[in-house]
């Protein structure tokens, strides 16, 4: 019995050892990198090489690698290895992703990597990595966390944790406070959170166990964490960044994943839209402020005096901190105002409220117009000076002054004051930046010229304003995504100088993507969504026939993208009249994305069910919509993607026109170039939804003859362009069907991991061979 047991144990040890050996330890340019998988894709190796070079040079990088090739794990394993090897050079990794599920995915990959590290080195893990999200996702207070909207949770939380509320609690114990925050504040700040990997749920568990508030714990812990994973907004949105990310160390590496839309995020975070409703709510805000002030004056005049003297001192503290490099600078709080005291005209509370009132009245007057007005910031300032004698300087301090006032007045529910905060931000921005912004006042929407709905768009045209502090502060910023082509445009519009710009292709054992450009119907009528011909009966019929034919040969799911909701509605209505819809429904069920989020997610759910059950389904959706950005159609959920037309942005919009003009004047980017770039990146995003890895496969059909032109084709990512041969450029529907059928049959043949080995999947030995290294060198293309 005993020898048998011994043998068994030996076997067990052998198996465990074997498992350990199987995982990879790589030598990347002299750096030992632990890689928690048995095999590695050649492009991952190449990606890590480029990344290492970027970190060595302490510069910024733009890297494009197709989705499904393990970008995340490559990034994490290299940067973690770098942190371990040179702990003084890189102290922190800040990983920015877009959505909560994506954040969770990153943390899981990280956990795998760290498990592998501990197994290998047998040392205790001393890394602290955590995810951060909004209060809504982290709150464990029984009443607060039950609220449904993020704003409500924030407001309620604030009313329980604000400093003066807690001060009141001291004198009056019946005043409710959040016990989790109290506990954290009393104990949590002294005791560091033990090293480990924390996703949102882990944080909550930890918080519950200790009785600490996970949200504040996380916010506090990111200062000394080795890895932080959170959303873009914590770095890019000046309002949030100031609260959360201000004190992040300078020697951090910042990664923006899925960053193909980063310029739009930047612009959105700096733009302000003011409607009449905002102004009305602002009016009530001002009245509340006034009442509170007069009340406080009777009871506690000393407090207001104290504030006054503080304002005379100016914002010196913040200034000192920024100069000594403690803080990330905030574009809403420009450097100049830090050196000055708040101007006398708005120093007392009453004067400030009076000032806000005047400003508000002015804005109201501006909204009472009947024609569109577009003007620059200096023009606006001049006008406001002439009309209501408001100077530039006090405007600039508006945001800071309001914050101070709200603090002094001890107003608990900040959420209510969002309107006036918005206005004050607008005031500060408009008086600070004379370039890069434009003001457009529209009395009505273009579609409904009879209904008065005046909007003041204060729109940012220069994405580099919001991201500038990030590039300036952190030593390495990596921008990466599956679709960043053409690579040279991002450094230009974000105004930075990268040290590495590279695009990686997908090495494939079999060609699992099949891009086809369909330019004509069987009747030889050109297919295009060009404005002049989009109402053409023949074009719509041909689009319908294309979808019908594809529905007969593609199994399971097809996703079709249109250029806009209106265009989709028109086409679908016309297909219905022509009886095409009825024919399609014999092959597959049809689901439609709408502007309603709930309806869309319902449609999506049913779509997936139909694909799962073998009935087959078609999802009609819109480029730039919810589906095109965030939803993946793996395997059978998307065997084909059809892009009907080129998804140009609506060019008649005044905001866009202003932005194009700005780009032309400032960055020498021609309007047409930018529009095409923008359209093609969205088209690439759409068709890229279907291929999410090397075992996946799918047809990519571009149904517009304009795609065949070199200027469009050349802007597709390299990994799609590679497979676009001359033979698949200007096809008719029939040819497409033949090619598609052939492709789908080829792809349905059994495909095992062994077939990939050595070609697109490498073991350590294969990786070290001479000619493989040569091949890898070709994968990265320097732009």
């Amino acid at each position, binding site marked *: 019995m005993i020898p048998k047991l011994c043998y068994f144990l030996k076997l067990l040890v052998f198996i465990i050892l074997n498992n350990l050996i199987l995982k990879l330890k790589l030598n990347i340019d002299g750096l030992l990198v632990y890689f928690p998988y048995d095999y590695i894709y050649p492009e991952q190796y190449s990606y890590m090489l480029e990344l290492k070079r970027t970190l060595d040079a302490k510069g910024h990088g733009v890297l494009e690698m197709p989705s499904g090739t393990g970008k995340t794990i490559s990034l994490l394993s290299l940067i973690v290895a770098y942190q371990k090897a040179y702990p003084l050079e890189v102290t922190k990794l800040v990983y920015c992703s877009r959505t909560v599920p994506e954040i969770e995915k990153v943390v899981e990959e990280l956990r795998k990597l760290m498990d592998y590290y501990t197994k290998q080195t047998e040392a205790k893990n001393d890394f602290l990595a955590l995810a951060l999200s909004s209060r809504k996702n982290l709150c464990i207070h029984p009443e607060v966390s039950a609220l449904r909207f993020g704003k409500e949770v924030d407001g309620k939380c604030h009313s329980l944790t604000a400093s003066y509320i807690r001060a009141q609690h001291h004198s009056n114990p019946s005043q409710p406070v959040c016990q989790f925050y109290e506990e954290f504040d009393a104990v949590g700040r002294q005791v560091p959170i033990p090293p480990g990997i924390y996703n949102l749920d882990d944080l909550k568990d930890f918080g519950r166990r200790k009785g600490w508030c996970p949200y504040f714990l996380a916010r506090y812990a990111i200062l000394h964490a080795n890895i932080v994973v959170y959303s873009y907004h914590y770095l890019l949105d000046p309002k949030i960044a100031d609260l959360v990310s201000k004190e992040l160390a300078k020697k951090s590496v910042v990664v923006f994943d899925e960053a193909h839309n980063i310029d739009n995020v930047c612009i959105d975070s700096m733009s302000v839209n003011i409607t009449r409703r905002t102004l009305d709510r602002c009016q009530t805000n001002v009245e509340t402020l006034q009442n509170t002030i007069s009340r406080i004056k009777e009871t506690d005049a000393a407090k207001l005096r104290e504030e006054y003297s503080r304002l005379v001192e100016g914002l010196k503290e913040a200034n000192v901190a920024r100069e000594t490099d403690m803080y990330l600078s905030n574009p809403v709080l420009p450097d100049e105002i830090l050196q000055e005291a708040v101007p006398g005209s708005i120093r007392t509370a009453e004067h400030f409220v009076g000032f806000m009132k005047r400003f508000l009245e002015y804005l109201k007057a501006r909204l009472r117009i009947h024609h569109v007005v577009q003007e620059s910031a200096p023009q606006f300032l001049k006008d406001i000076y002439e009309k209501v004698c408001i100077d530039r300087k006090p405007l600039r301090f508006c945001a800071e002054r309001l914050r101070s006032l709200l603090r002094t007045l001890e107003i608990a529910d900040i959420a209510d004051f969002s309107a006036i905060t918005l206005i004050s931000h607008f005031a500060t921005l408009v008086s600070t930046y004379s370039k890069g912004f434009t003001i457009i006042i529209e009395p009505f929407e273009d579609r409904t010229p009879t209904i008065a709905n005046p909007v003041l768009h204060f729109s940012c045209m220069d994405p580099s304003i919001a991201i500038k502090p990030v590039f300036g502060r952190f030593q390495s910023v990596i921008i990466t995504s599956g679709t960043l082509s053409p690579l040279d445009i991002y450094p230009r519009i974000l105004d930075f100088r990268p040290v590495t710009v590279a695009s990686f292709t997908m090495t*494939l*054992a*079999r*060609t699992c993507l099949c891009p086809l450009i369909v330019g004509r119907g069987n009747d030889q009528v050109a297919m295009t969504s060009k404005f002049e011909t989009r109402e053409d009966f023949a074009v719509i019929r041909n689009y319908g026939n294309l979808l*019908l034919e594809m529905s*007969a*040969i*593609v*199994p*399971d799911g097809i996703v079709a993208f249109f250029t806009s909701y209106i265009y989709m509605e028109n086409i679908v209505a016309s297909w219905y009249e022509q009886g095409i819809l009825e*024919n399609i429904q*014999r*092959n*597959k069920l049809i689901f439609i994305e709408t502007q309603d989020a709930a309806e869309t997610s319902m449609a999506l759910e049913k779509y997936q069910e139909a*694909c*799962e*059950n*073998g*009935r*087959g389904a078609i999802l009609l959706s819109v480029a730039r919509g919810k589906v095109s950005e965030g939803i993946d159609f793996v*395997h*059978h959920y998307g*065997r084909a993607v059809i892009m009907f037309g080129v998804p140009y942005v609506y060019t008649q919009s005044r905001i866009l026109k202003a932005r194009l003009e700005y780009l032309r004047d400032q960055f020498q980017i021609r309007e047409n170039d930018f529009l095409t770039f923008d359209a093609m990146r969205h088209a690439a995003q759409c068709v890229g939804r279907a291929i999410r890895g090397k075992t996946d496969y799918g047809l990519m059909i571009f149904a517009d003859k304009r795609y065949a032109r070199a200027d469009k084709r050349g802007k597709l990512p390299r990994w799609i362009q590679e497979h676009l*041969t001359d033979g698949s450029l200007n096809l008719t529907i*029939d*040819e497409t*069907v*033949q*090619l598609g*059928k*052939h492709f*789908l*049959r*080829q*792809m*349905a*043949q*059994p*495909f095992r991991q062994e*077939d990939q080995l050595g070609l697109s999947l490498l073991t350590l030995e294969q990786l070290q061979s001479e000619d493989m290294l040569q091949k890898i060198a070709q994968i990265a293309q320097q732009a």
Partner: protein
Amino acid sequence: MDEEPERAKRWEGGYERTWEVLKEDESGSLKASVEDILFQAKRKRYMSEGHGQVRLGMMRHLFVIIDSSRSMEDQDLRPNRLTSTLKLMEFFVEEYFDQNPISQIGIITTKNKRAEKLTDLAGNPKKHLAALKKAVDSTCVGEPSLYNSLNVAITGLVLTIYTLHMPAHTSKEILVIFSSLTTCDPANIYELIKTLNALKIRVSVIGLSAEVRVCTILTRETGGSYNVILDESHFKELLMLHVKPPPASSSSECSLIRMGFPQHVIASMSDQDAKPSFSMSHLDSTGEPGLTLGGYYCPQCRAKYTELPVECKVCGLTLVSAPHLARSFHHLFPLEAFQETPLEEYEGERFCEACQGELKDKSVFTCLACKKVFCVECDLFIHDTLHCCPGCMQTDRTS
């Protein structure tokens, strides 16, 4: 929309890019790599069988479900999918009984959201062949229903096996030939897959157009295989894969089965005692002329049958002839795989032992027992059809 029979004219059909098949492969990995994978799979088919003694389910009960929906009118197989499929099925049925003499088969068609049983489970190829010939003229309409047809097949399998008191280890199989890319089901098919799993019924699918998710799941859960055809010859190859008995599920227990080996009694007209009599198998089929003189008599109950193999209607004994059993013998002891060597490394006379042709392929195959050399085609032929090495046979005889 393309339902009108007029569309069947050749010049109205789609382009066929026949030149694509012959495409020289200078850039793409697609054609070459897929074909290479296919070739490997072909070889692997018997390579895998060679390893160890796999238990095989020799007594098979197989239902073939043939999709007869609208998509079967597609002309990518000649003259259309339906005709081509039925022709191959005829061939398949013959091969099946040739190689699995003690097994049974049944045919189901599905169209217009319904399933229809063409023939019941039976061991006589004639009836199936007749039914298949008749089915060529039927029209293809509507969508198929995977659920309904599987349901019919399950009922058929379970009923037969219970009424005939079959031992538990008989293999129950369903083969679906699926042309459509959609299925119209009255209920959740995943529940049915669970039932199939519980009943240990193996479902395999041959797709005629592309990979459908539900079939992938269906075959994976029930332990079957799923293949999609490339062209007609590939179709035939895939179909022939199902001629071989599948490995028996390991859980089924070993048991002995009683079998009868009736002698063929030939009675001549001159014999006075001989009287013409009916065969027992004519009880349910009235089509053929009834009275015959000789026949096989069940050793247990003396019931008369004209054809073997058969299940005795009276006592339930399986009646087979010795050659039948012998023929299924080779499945249990397959010919060992030949050793593959590249042509450059091979030294010796460059002609194939079997076909006497010159060796031109990139590799040659050597029998491990007799050291004779064969070409690829002969290697496949020997392993697929002959099941014994001609080289070894020769040496056996001479020694």
